[in-house]
Structure formats: structure tokens, C-alpha cells
């Protein structure tokens, strides 16, 4: 799916909910569906800094696309992380670099994206973009 389509699709899914409890419950459920990150990836080196809860993020290249895997020890964080992974994983570095996760504010979760918020979602998005940047230049030179 095209990255913008993913974004629009997430916004549509959330438009069904009437209050915050339903939105948060969906986020938590969405996180539960995230593919489990094997223990060997849950290491210090994969931790995203700036989180009160722990967030691990890994990346690998599949053809010209990046595959992200992530996990968190907190359920809401994990849910938010799973949405961002859904947006960016399986996309090209170019698409990742040119797309901001606008859906987050559209689903009423903008407070979680503030760089000063201690949940680290902003740090994770930044980390994904750094990976995309690195792989973009790697793909260009190879």
C-alpha cells in the first residue's frame, strides 16, 4: 500500500470512535497485534532514548524497502509505536523521509508527538528517519 494510503486508512479507522476511551482501547489492541520482537533484539543498543517506557526499534533492508520491528514494555506506547511501524515499515527510504506521521494529530494523539513528552514517540519517528537517511545513501552508492 502507498504510504499516504496507509496514513489515510489509519485516520479512517479512528474516525469511527466517539470518545477517548475507545481510541485508547483501539491503540492498545493495535499494539497487541504487533509482531513480537525476539529477545535478542530487546537489547540496550536498540533502545530509543527519551522514553519513560522502554522502546526497542530494529530495521532491516528488504530489496529497496525498510522493514521496521519495534516493541515496548508499556501498552499505550506499544500501540502508538505499532501505528508508526504500520506507516513506515515496508516503505522506501525516500517515502519515509518525505512523509510525516500526520495521522497522529488527526486521530487526536498529537500530545504524544511532542518532542518534550517523555513517551519517546517523537524520538522513535526521528530514529526511523535517521535509518531511512542512512539506507538512502547506502542504496545510492551500492
Amino acid at each position, binding site marked *: 500500500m502507498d504510504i499516504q494510503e496507509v496514513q489515510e486508512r489509519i485516520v479512517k479507522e479512528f474516525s469511527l470512535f466517539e470518545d*477517548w*476511551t475507545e481510541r*485508547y*482501547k483501539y491503540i*492498545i489492541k493495535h499494539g497487541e497485534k504487533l509482531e513480537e520482537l525476539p529477545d535478542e533484539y530487546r537489547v540496550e543498543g536498540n533502545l530509543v532514548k527519551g522514553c*519513560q*517506557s*522502554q522502546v526497542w526499534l530494529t530495521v532491516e533492508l528488504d530489496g529497496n524497502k525498510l522493514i521496521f520491528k519495534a516493541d515496548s*514494555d*508499556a*501498552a*499505550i*506506547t506499544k500501540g502508538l509505536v505499532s501505528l508508526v511501524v504500520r506507516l513506515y515499515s515496508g516503505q522506501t527510504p525516500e517515502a519515509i523521509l518525505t512523509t510525516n506521521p500526520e495521522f497522529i494529530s488527526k486521530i487526536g494523539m498529537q500530545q504524544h508527538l511532542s518532542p518534550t513528552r*517523555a*513517551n519517546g514517540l517523537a524520538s522513535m519517528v526521528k530514529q526511523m528517519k535517521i535509518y531511512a537517511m542512512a539506507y538512502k545513501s547506502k542504496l545510492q552508492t551500492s
Partner: protein
Amino acid sequence: MPQTTTDIPTKINWEEIRAQFPVLQQEVNGKKLVYLDNGASSQMPKSVSDRIDAYHKNEHANVHRGIHSLSQKATDAFEATRTKVRDFINAGSLEEIIYTTGTTDSINLVAQSYGRKNFKASDEILVSEMEHHANIVPWQMIAEETGAKLKVIPMNDKGELIMDKFYELFSDKTKMVAVVHVSNALGSINPVEEIIEAAHKRNVPVLIDGAQAVPHSKVDVQALDADFYAFSAHKMCGPTGFGILYGKKDLLNAMPPYRGGGDMIDKVTFEKTTWNDLPHKFEAGTPPISAGVGLGAGIDFLNQIGMEAIAEREYELLEYATEKLNQIEGLKIVGTADKKASVISFLLDGIHPTDAGTILDQQGIAVRTGHHCAQPIMQHYEIPGTLRASISFYNNEEDIDRLVEGIELVKEFFG
């Protein structure tokens, strides 16, 4: 509620006091705000923000240097706070009240000035396992430079210092004891009187981190016989960016300044500078004047209520909250010292503190989550962090009930 006539004159109307805090009248996420993060910062009554406002409108100029009337007005307003602080903590003199930017700054001052002058390799600094990072890191920094070492007084699982270990750790190498009066993460009230008395038998000075103690009970530095006592304005109804270091005059006089600049000098030539007298020797540069004025107003506000009444009310609320929270299945209070101030750290079975904190915030309930800048405490319990409700005298039973309801919803979410 029916009131007996004998009750009326002595009873404080806490709802009237609460009404003086404009910030508490707002809604957060569509719900009436329940503010239970007073350990991080208290709120400001209108009298304090009005005083700061009036200072800016009528009295502002730089302090201690102008011949003109406005500068004198600002200086008078700023220095009036020093007298109020001296009386509030019963210090011996105005020279013993050093203005800083907060507790952290106060402790850094002692570490950098007293520590650099007096510590040498193999000396030991005694801290406790329940210190805030502000009473660990400044000592580590000076220890690294001087070769001194940190020794740690352990605590038991209730969150009480193991005093036997304190005596065991104390030796001829001990050159400073730095302990927290009231733990910000657990609420434990430490036996600082005993610690000070013991240290003085060996002529070792004691610094007390009083950030969480001064706002909640009557502290008398002379009765305690503390050598240094540090606290912050923003935890006692004052503004941020301002704090106090109390120090005994003899000790302060023997200490070199650690920051240079204006206000702290006597005479400056390129060859040599001589220092100003106490307390200005430690107050380089233009201070946060309005914040200092604000602290004075904060002390006035607390004095009007009375620290005994405040301590009593907060204890009442602590008891109420502890009882209510203990009834919640799957909730475990972390920190159950016999002597506690109105701080309750807790865990919810199987629920990450940040998740719980997020759902509470959605309901307009402000608590703190995380390690509370006291990671060694979390390491003691082998937990990533806790939720912390810290209660002030302007909270009420309804706030606690809302917290309890909020937690029930959290449990529903993650159950």
C-alpha cells in the same frame, strides 16, 4: 454538615484556601483538574502571583547597585525575603541565608565550594540509597575530581534508612554526610536529628536536602543543628528558579565562592579580587529578583495558615488516601515507612506506570510517573518506576476519591 459552635473559630476552612489557587479551577481534558504532582512543584496562590506582578509593575530595577530610588525599592523587596526565610526556618542570621536557583543549585554550591576545598583522595562522602539525583551527582562530580568516594547508607524494603549500617559506614574517612529529609519518591521521613548528632560527634558536617520537608512541616535548622540545609521556592507555593541554601556562618565564611561575577566581589583589580561578605559572596550575577520576591509572598501565605496546621491537614489526607488506595485490588504502595510525609508511590499489578499515568491524565488527574529522579530507589525495588501521588494541603478528599475512580478505570483498560 452540622457544625458545633466550639469548632468554628479554630477550624481552618480548607476549601477557602483551595479557592485561592486559580490554576486548580481549570478543566483538563474536559474534567475538573485533580492536581497530585505537588512533589514536583506546588501551585501558586493568587497572592503570590499578584505580588510578583506588582513587583514587575512598580518596583523592578536591578538590586544592590543603584543609587536611584527604584533600585532601592527592588533591593528592599528582594532582601525582605531573606528575613522571612530566616524566620521561617529559624536560622541564626541573615548571613546564613544564601539565595540560589533551587535545591540542586544549593547542593552543587556546597559540593563545589566546601568539597573542593576540603575533600582529598580516600575521603568519603556518605549519602543514602534514597537520595534524589540532585544529592548524588554533585557529590560524584566532586569525588571524581578530588579522589574522594561515595558511600551509601542502605534502606530497608519499607523505605527506611538502616541506621545500623549508617553507624557501620561512618569512619575517620567520612568528611561529609548528605541525606534527604523527606524522600521525594517514597515519602519517608528520615531521622536527620540522629544523623546530625552522630556526625557532629566526629566533627563531620551534614547537608540536608530539605526540598520535600520545608513545604510540609515546621523545620527549625538550629534545633536540627544542620550545617547545610537546601530547599526550593517552587515546592512551597513560590515560583520556579529560586531556592535557598542555609549554612552555618562559620562554615560559609571559610568556604571560597565557586562562581565569580558581579555582586559577589569586594574589590576587583586584574591582579586580585577580594570577596564580598556573606551572603553575597555566593550570589554572583543578577539574581531572579521577582522569583525571590515571590518566595517571600509564598512564605507569608504558608505562615498565615501555619505550618503545624498544614502538616496536620496533609497527614489527614495521607491517611485517607493510603486507606483508600490500599483497598484497590492489585495496587501496591511502594514506600511504607513508619514515618511518612504526604507522598504515595504505587504500582498497579501488570500495568506500566506510564500507561496508567496516561489514562489518569485523560481523566484530568495529574500524577507523576517514572523514576522520580531517584533511580537507585527503583533499582532497590527492581522496578522501572512508580506512579506517585503527592498531596498538598490544598488537595481534598474529593481529589483522592477521583484518583481512586481514575485507577479503577485504568484497571478496566488494561485488565
